């Protein structure tokens, strides 16, 4: 492969936005934290209401970035 072609291919993959990457990397921890929050919410009506009313705030309080997939996962667990 010519050096010019290598250069061209290197330009094809610019970095993804850093916050997107970080949120995706945190998925395993986020899933565990969601399970913990949901388990607590089952025993705590106030927490359950807070989670349902504003999941983003609840996730931030738990130290998690409320990326759309994390919020969606939390909502799905609360509804499930």
């Amino acid at each position, binding site marked *: *492969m010519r050096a010019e072609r*290598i250069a061209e*291919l290197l*330009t*094809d*993959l610019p970095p993804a936005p850093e916050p*997107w*990457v970080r949120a995706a*990397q945190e998925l395993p921890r986020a899933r565990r934290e969601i399970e913990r929050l949901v388990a607590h919410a089952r025993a705590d009506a106030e927490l359950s209401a807070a989670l349902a009313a504003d999941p983003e705030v609840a996730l931030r309080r738990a130290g998690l970035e409320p990326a759309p997939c994390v919020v969606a996962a939390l909502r799905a667990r609360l509804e499930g």
Partner: protein
Amino acid sequence: MAGPPSDAELIARCRAGDDAAWALLVERFARYVHAILTRVYRLAPRVAEDTFHEVFARVYEQLPKLRDDAAFRPWLAQLTRRLAIDALRAAARERPDDGELIEYLDIAADDAITELEQALTVRAALWDLPDHCADVLDRFFARDESYATIGAALGIPAGTIASRISRCLERVRSILEGRSATPAPSGGR
């Protein structure tokens, strides 16, 4: 010294609950997924962000069921394409004229994704370069930084950067030639 893990090794570690392996898998493929969403399917930034997260959420959920770990890359490309098309179709419900555009983008996607796969192979060759070489190439070509910015960030005279780039490209070329003689594990970072 052991090189970076293959995709299959990383996936096995992810299945075993290794968060560091998951972080590396995301780092390795984030650019690829991002490029498919934004350059191939031209999703708007907000839609691309949601879809990017959806792709990795599905990967995380479906990794335990993946049958052939060595085929991770095509599986990921297919998953990303499917979710990109879903996102475009959802948007097209509000703009029916976009139907033809979606069809056109999906037909053109085959060639574009083949190009991105080659780009991943080239990026994988950067793993075998000294850090300063990989960094200068990434900054100049992928991050589109100027000589002045690169020089300031790496503490090297801006006037030497063009020759460094040229030498480093030559090293990548040699690595790729070596790999084409002996197939290496797939993956991109």
